[in-house]
């Protein structure tokens, strides 16, 4: 099925796509899995906020403070609507990494407090008998916080392995057992492109009474996602990958779970009462939003969400599916090129990693860059996944609503040129 998007029209909304790089090469931006570009509507919204309503939110008695608070809470509502959640269950973070840390710290903080006699929800208390389950395709952001949690509590870290064709090995779901207190899994891998059956993993987590976390960084920007449908307790993602500003991320939580979680970052705006020797905390989401938040960024993100709603997330997904099929086919036609991850477009997103025989990924990327094609090289913050597939690194193409088949053609031509240059054909 062809793309339903008018890419040429969309590109007009992204000023950066009109620039040239490396001299006079038109920019071909294929690095949206790292961060997306921003439409003018987002930049305008942020600027308008600063020029008209900037003030500290939830604090002042003056009109600017009212307007700023309104802007911030309206952004929360827009984002909630976008993912099918309630505004009260959406927490603003600085990025997805903070969201995942917020989740992991709920456990370490509860464990430490319990050991000093404070009342906490026992679901968040870990001992050496407990386990934490993740997968072998996690971004470092969904790996290291759990490693750290285990280092702090003595709990055991387990991971579900991968099949040779880049999928979760679901036979290993049994690693989630009665010892398991939390299961955290990526919805769509940023290195393999795989879309995981997270509902199945979350259901398994709930069978054993564990809390379920989903890293939706690469799914929410690229396909319609209803947070309720994922079956998770906590879902986190970033704003900068979905046309929004840098410096803002999101955490959605099931109300009952958010409510049971101890605070993470503490300070102003997250309190109920404060005395020198003790304090009580506000209900979620305020409990998790200490300090002056990223108000302008929330306003920019609301504009991004509205932009995506106008395009339509079904159309976005269909468009990317089309590009992904095209790119997978094109890469597989090139001799000496191997895709790391699923080779067909079923349950798969548009981030496509590959290696080229005889040329290091870094050099492939450099030669593509020289032709104006911006891709990412390296381990993509998923180093253990690279090891699983015996590659030191990969080159990755990743597209979004402003890319079309001609961008893929440019990348394919660049790979061929690199092969010629390095004499590996």
């Amino acid at each position, binding site marked *: 099925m062809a793309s339903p998007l008018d890419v040429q029209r969309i590109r007009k909304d992204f000023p950066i796509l009109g620039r040239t790089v490396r001299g006079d090469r038109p920019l071909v931006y294929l690095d949206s899995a790292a961060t997306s570009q921003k439409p003018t509507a987002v930049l305008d919204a942020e600027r308008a906020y600063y020029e008209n309503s900037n003030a500290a939110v939830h604090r002042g008695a003056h009109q600017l403070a009212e307007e700023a608070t309104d802007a911030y809470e309206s952004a929360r509502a827009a984002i909630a609507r976008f993912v099918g959640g309630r505004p009260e269950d959406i927490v603003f973070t600085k990025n997805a990494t903070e969201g995942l840390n917020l989740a992991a710290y709920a456990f370490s903080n509860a464990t430490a407090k319990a050991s000093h006699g404070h009342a906490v929800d026992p679901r968040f208390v870990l001992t050496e008998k407990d386990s934490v389950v993740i997968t072998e395709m996690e971004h470092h952001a969904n790996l290291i916080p759990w490693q750290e949690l285990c280092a702090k509590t003595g709990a055991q870290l387990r991971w579900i392995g991968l099949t040779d064709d880049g999928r979760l090995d679901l036979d290993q779901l049994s690693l989630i057992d009665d010892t398991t207190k939390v299961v955290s899994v990526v919805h769509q891998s940023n290195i393999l492109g795989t879309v995981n059956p997270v509902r199945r993993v979350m259901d398994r987590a709930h069978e054993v009474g564990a809390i379920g976390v989903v890293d939706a960084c690469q799914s929410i920007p690229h396909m319609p996602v209803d947070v309720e449908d994922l079956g998770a307790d906590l879902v986190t993602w970033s704003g900068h990958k979905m046309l929004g500003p840098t410096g803002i991320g999101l955490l959605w939580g099931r109300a009952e779970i958010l409510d049971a979680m101890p605070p993470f970052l503490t300070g102003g705006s997250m309190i109920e009462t404060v005395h020198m020797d003790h304090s009580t905390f506000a209900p979620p989401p305020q409990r998790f939003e200490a300090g002056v938040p990223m108000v302008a960024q929330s306003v920019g993100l609301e504009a991004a969400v509205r932009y995506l709603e106008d395009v339509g997330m079904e159309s976005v997904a269909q468009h990317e599916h089309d590009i992904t099929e095209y790119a997978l086919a094109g890469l597989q036609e090139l001799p000496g090129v191997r895709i790391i991850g699923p080779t067909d477009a079923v349950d798969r997103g548009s981030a496509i990693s590959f290696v080229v025989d005889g040329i*290091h*990924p*870094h*050099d492939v990327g450099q030669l593509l860059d020289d032709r104006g094609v911006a891709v990412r090289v390296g381990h993509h913050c998923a180093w253990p996944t690279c090891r699983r597939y015996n590659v*030191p690194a990969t080159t990755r193409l990743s597209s979004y609503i402003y890319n079309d088949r001609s961008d893929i053609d440019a990348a394919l031509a660049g790979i061929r040129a690199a092969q010629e240059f390095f004499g590996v054909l």
Partner: protein
Amino acid sequence: MSDNVEALYQEIILDHYKHPRGATPLTDAQGESFQVNPTCGDEVTVGVRLDDAGHVHVGYEGQGCSISQASASVMSELLEGESVEHMAEAERAFLDMMHSKGAGEPNEDVLGDGIAFAGVSKYPARIKCALLPWMALQDARLKAGIDVDKAATSEI
């Protein structure tokens, strides 16, 4: 292909990449250092030994991009059997070149094939690649107790 990238991938670099010299670990190293570039996963282990006659011996092993691997090869070829003074001078000259952003004339007498890396200095993300073996060398020789004039090396 742009002039800049032609300058980056000098023939000599590609040649060292495809035919690395001295790419074996030093079995009797007095100091050894493993260095990794966390952004791309390039790795190199450099070993160093100073013999009784005052000659430096360098061995290495690694994996990574053309720039990091060629840099290791050029470095080991350049330093093998040389004096500590020469090593110090080469370290300093290589560093200066990398931070030059393409300005200045690298000293071929000191750097030999190393001058081929002058073009790397225009690509900030690749400077780390070229420096990786030199960082490992510096760490390895410190472990081996081979100290040189501070000014030469403290700025990697």
